[in-house]
């Protein structure tokens, strides 16, 4: 899940709603898609901007931990696959910023909020990628967790967001398979490779569980977002689904999930598992994770160093528009 703790506007009962708001809610209840130029409550628009923006930021900051290994990828094929994958992430960022633009916020405004710290990106990208096995673990666990949330979001009520999700999900499920393929190679490789694979799972397991956000009982913004169908499942539902799907995959690899309490519960039909350290999660969200500072600095530096480049292109565009105008005038 690339959107965590997105603040949603207060929930209204049917009696408190204006006729417009009630009609809007009824459209959503009928599973109609809301399109950009149609009327929508201000809270719906704002919440969507926060959520889509956070998701978009996560995609572009997410380039960094994986980009970290492109120049060190162990084979030409792995290098090509990783490059393609990171390029996909940037592409997802582009679709999502475009979806956000349909709600009346520009990409530059969203960037500014990212750079100033006013908007967040997923906590997961504040963890370092330390060995090649992390490229496997990120694909398998991080993209795997993202898919859990994004597959239902293909049915979300806002048309442009839903359509972006449909494209993104196709690529994400491919990424997850790529990550798993790396893990398989490592797990069946030399003792050192197997050690790297286990270490990657040890480090990424709990941060991956945190991606779904705090437990439902502590999640204050869910109800309204779920009524608007911009959040389709609760955090705990998705986390459980992720654990249920991932544990057998870890077993297949011959790796051990770093949770001594992990047990299959026949009665519930689910795994019982340990909660991540939520204090750590809140620290990471606050900016105190292992790589928060580097990640944000890298993005700010890229933006600042690119100022002359963007200015140059704008100046050229203005000049050529002026030249075209002059040519038209001369021709008349």
């Amino acid at each position, binding site marked *: 899940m690339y959107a965590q703790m997105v603040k949603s506007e207060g929930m209204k009962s049917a009696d408190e709603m204006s006729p417009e708001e009630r009609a809007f809610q009824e459209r959503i209840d009928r599973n109609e898609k809301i399109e950009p130029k149609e009327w929508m409550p201000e809270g719906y628009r704002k919440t969507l901007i926060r959520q889509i923006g956070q998701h978009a930021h996560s995609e*572009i900051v997410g*380039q*960094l931990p994986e*980009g970290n290994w*492109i*120049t*060190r*990828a*162990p*084979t*030409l*094929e*792995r*290098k*090509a696959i990783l*490059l*393609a994958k*990171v*390029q996909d992430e*940037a592409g997802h*960022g*582009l679709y999502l*910023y475009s979806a956000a633009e349909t709600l009346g916020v520009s*990409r530059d405004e969203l960037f500014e909020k990212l750079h100033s710290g006013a908007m967040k990106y997923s906590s997961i990208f504040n963890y370092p990628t330390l060995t*090649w096995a992390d490229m496997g673990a990120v694909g398998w666990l991080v993209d795997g967790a993202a898919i859990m949330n994004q597959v239902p979001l293909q049915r979300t009520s806002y048309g442009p967001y839903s359509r972006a999700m449909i494209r993104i999900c196709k690529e994400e499920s491919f990424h*997850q*398979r790529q990550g*798993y*393929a*790396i893990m*398989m*190679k*490592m797990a069946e*490789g*030399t003792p*050192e*490779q197997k050690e790297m694979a286990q270490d990657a799972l040890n480090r990424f397991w709990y941060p991956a569980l945190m991606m779904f956000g705090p437990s439902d009982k502590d999640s204050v913004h869910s109800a309204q977002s779920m009524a608007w169908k911009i959040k389709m499942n609760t955090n705990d539902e998705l986390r459980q689904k992720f654990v249920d*799907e991932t544990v*057998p*995959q870890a077993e*297949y690899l011959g790796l051990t999930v770093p949770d001594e309490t992990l047990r*299959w519960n026949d009665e519930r039909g689910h795994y019982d598992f340990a909660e991540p350290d939520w204090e750590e999660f809140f620290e990471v969200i606050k900016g105190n994770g292992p790589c928060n500072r580097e990640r944000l600095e*890298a993005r700010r*530096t*890229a*933006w600042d*160093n*690119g*100022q*002359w*480049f*963007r*200015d*140059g*292109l*704008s*100046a*050229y*565009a203005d*000049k050529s528009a002026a030249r075209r105008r002059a040519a038209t005038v001369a021709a008349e």
Partner: protein
Amino acid sequence: MPSLPDMTTPDVVALAESAAAAQSHDPHVQDVDLKPAFFDWLCRMGDNTLILGHRISEWCGHGPALEEDIALANTALDLIGHTQMWLGLAAEVQSEGRTADDLAFLRDAMKFRNLQLAELPNGDMAVTLMREFLFDAWHFHMLTALTRSASPRVAEIAAKALKEVSYHLERSSDLVVRLGDGTQESHARMQEALDRLWPYSGEMFVADAVDDAVANAGIAPVLADLQPAWQQTVEEVLAEATLTRPEGRADVHRGGKQGRHTEHLGYILAQMQFLQRAYPGASW
């Protein structure tokens, strides 16, 4: 118990076999007399794309605009794809049981055959783009000539790569023009990048015995024959970009093709080859 999703289908081997079966028969690949020069020349082609691809990939996530991040990663990806083809054929010609990966990850700097231009540090986007442009213009004319190679295998690779490189040249030319004729600052940066890179650009056209041998075999064009077309492309773009072609010699810095490199290549290889060197024989 939830079922394990299907994440283990091994279709890679079948794909590789069908691709190999589709390849043309090429007598040059087994020509013993030609082997040393042909191998060396293929390494030049593959090392150029590998090292330039490596440099461009360093931008990943650090570009000046999201569209540039995507374009830079895409360009690097194309170049790594070309590397797989050129070094794959080089390994076949060498016939010592090595693979493209062995050539990429287990040769030291002395054995690398890329132009010095390709290994120069990225600098700012002006240097990166100008380096791409000067290389793309050569790459485009080279590949165009190679599509008529007497070696069917070389012609096939060239035809495939040319589709992508045509786009690389279009993109880098366009950006050189826009930034050259943009603001005062972007103009100054582009001119500075050109002045700095120009003395490395001539190496592309300085032929040695290897180039002569592959040219005589009809595999590759005579390098000097490519220069007028390159010159024309470069001059047209620079003129439109309001940039001035430097006065000095273009072939001051050379030797990369023979394995004499700048100090920078060693660091590229230290990074690129780390895993293969640290864990010899491991499969990834």
